[in-house]
């Protein structure tokens, strides 16, 4: 509305009402009606009288035979002007309203477009959220599956370890007896160089085999500690022992290539759930090992520090690595259930969440300090409960 310069209600000028041709024709016909020619013009000339229409002088009329003739002609023109003006007014109003309606329509259309764009953006955001959630669910499924598998494999291993214990026991003692027999046999045979050679070799073979059975026995012991197969749910635990066996198993996982520094100080026994604590230590150490194996970790020598220390009313277990660290934007999310920076399949996304839950279940806490590219230190604090 505001844009229209001339309002429909503005008083019309002669030009607004009649075209040049129409004015000429009006002059001609009026003149032929009058005894002397008359002229209607926008500008006043001498002797001209006003042609009034709606309180407005729209034109000046001059000529004519007498003042009476002039005023009669002027009267007639005013009369005609009313109809012309009515038409003009209606047409102008129509133009104004059409323009206003169109502007309004355009405004509505723009508003519609804006809101449509807003909804599209919203729907895109929603889709993105859905995609994110779907991928979280997929990952969760994967990790739940993996953790369940890990648990059953662990149970199986513990069962097997238990079964192996007996045969390993008698194999080991039989080997020892067999070696003694070899020594006895050696004395009852002639001492030729061939015999000497044969006996030494035989002796070594048996020694190596005995060494092998000792190693098997120690792995079995670690497995038993780790899965605490023969422990009640809550017992007094030796954290250092649990840490050591977890560390051995992690070493086994990583082909004994890890440089794990142990700084285990003497600790009082802690009331806890040994297999959950072992699982936690395993996770923390395994995370550290993976941080070291990360591709973008430079050629710095990777090390893992495994430390325990006693405070006034709590025990701290620290697992620290000088690996890739946790990127800043991930740090706030490291405890999000199932969150992992490693691609799905490499597992242990549950590690930190499970570790923290375990800490909480034991009345303790888990904190993480990490700098990208410099390493990560995880501190597990457990209270020493008064017994």
């Amino acid at each position, binding site marked *: *509305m505001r844009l229209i310069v001339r*309002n*429909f*209600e503005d008083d019309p000028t002669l030009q607004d009402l009649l075209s040049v041709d129409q004015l000429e024709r009006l002059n001609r016909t009026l003149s032929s009606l009058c005894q002397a020619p008359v002229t209607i013009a926008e500008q006043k000339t001498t002797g001209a009288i006003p042609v009034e*229409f*709606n*309180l407005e002088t729209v034109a000046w009329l001059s000529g004519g035979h007498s003042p009476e003739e002039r005023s009669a002609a002027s009267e007639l023109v005013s009369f005609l002007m*009313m109809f012309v*003006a*009515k038409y003009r*007014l*209606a047409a102008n*109003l*129509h133009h*104004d*309203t059409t323009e*206003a*309606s169109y502007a309004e329509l355009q405004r509505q259309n723009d508003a519609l477009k804006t809101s449509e764009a807003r909804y599209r953006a919203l729907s895109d955001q929603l889709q993105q959220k859905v995609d994110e959630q779907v991928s979280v669910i997929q990952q969760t499924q994967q990790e739940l599956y993996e953790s369940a598998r890990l648990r059953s494999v662990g149970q199986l291993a513990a069962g097997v370890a238990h079964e192996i214990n007996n045969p390993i026991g008698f194999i080991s003692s039989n080997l020892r007896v067999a070696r003694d027999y070899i020594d006895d046999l050696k004395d009852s045979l002639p001492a030729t160089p061939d015999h000497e050679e044969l006996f030494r070799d035989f002796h070594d073979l048996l020694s190596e085999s005995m060494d092998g059975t000792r190693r098997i026995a120690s792995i079995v012991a670690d497995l038993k500690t780790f899965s605490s197969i023969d422990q009640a749910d809550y017992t007094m635990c030796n954290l250092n022992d649990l840490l050591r066996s977890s560390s051995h198993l992690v070493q086994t996982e990583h082909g004994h290539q890890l440089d794990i520094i142990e700084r285990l100080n003497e600790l009082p026994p802690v009331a806890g759930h040994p297999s959950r604590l072992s699982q936690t230590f395993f996770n923390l150490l395994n995370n550290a090992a993976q941080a070291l194996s990360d591709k973008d970790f430079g050629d710095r020598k990777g090390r893992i520090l495994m430390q325990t220390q006693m405070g006034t009313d709590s025990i701290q277990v620290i697992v620290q690595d000088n690996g890739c660290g946790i990127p800043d934007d991930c740090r706030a999310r490291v405890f999000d259930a199932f969150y992992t920076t490693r691609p799905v399949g490499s597992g242990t996304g549950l590690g930190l969440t499970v570790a923290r839950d375990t800490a909480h279940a034991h009345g303790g806490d888990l904190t993480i300090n990490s700098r990208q590219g410099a390493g990560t230190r995880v501190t597990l604090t457990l209270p020493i409960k008064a017994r």
Partner: protein
Amino acid sequence: MPDYQAHDNKLTLKVVFYGPALSGKTTNLMQLHSLLNPERKGELMVLETRDDRTLFFDMLPIGLRGTSGLDLRLKLYTVPGQVQHDSTRKAVLSRADGIVFVADSQPSQQDNNAMAFGNLEENLEKVGLDIDTLPMVVQFNKRDLPGVVEELELQQRWTSTPWAPLMMASALQGNGVIESFRALLDRLYIAISDEFALEHRHGIFRHTFIDGLSACHEADRAKL
């Protein structure tokens, strides 16, 4: 808003008769045209109608001159009351200086009155006018009909609005039309006289303004 053109010392004011369809806006204007005898009076322009119902608008220009030679004009417009002509109503309403709201007194028309009043509020806002400061008179028309809503009831209903007291009229019989118009002129004068120094610069006093613009033919005056 008043349109003052300094170069020809001309001030044009716009009064709009608003209201629901068939309430008697056109009849009000026709009565004013025949009753009024102000200093200056133009033609009543009744634009297109269909079945006597306004399609565009009606317009009557009247005027008077101030002692300064001020050419003061009042253009009286009616809007089409029918719902579907809202954009025309808005165009006619724009830049109004005063409103006469013509309501229908028949009980069956009270909803339509309310809707038309709501529409007026809405359109005033759209054309940038403020209903609380705009001079306005509310007229209840068709008092001659039997069974109309009691005046007392109407007056009480409107008593706490800025538009009390209401004007009662029978436009068909010519009653209350001039009175409604004079009430509007009064409010209009109060609203604009200072801005245009009507009294000091142009010698147009409140009574000059009201009496001058609502002057009636002697014969009709006798009737009133």
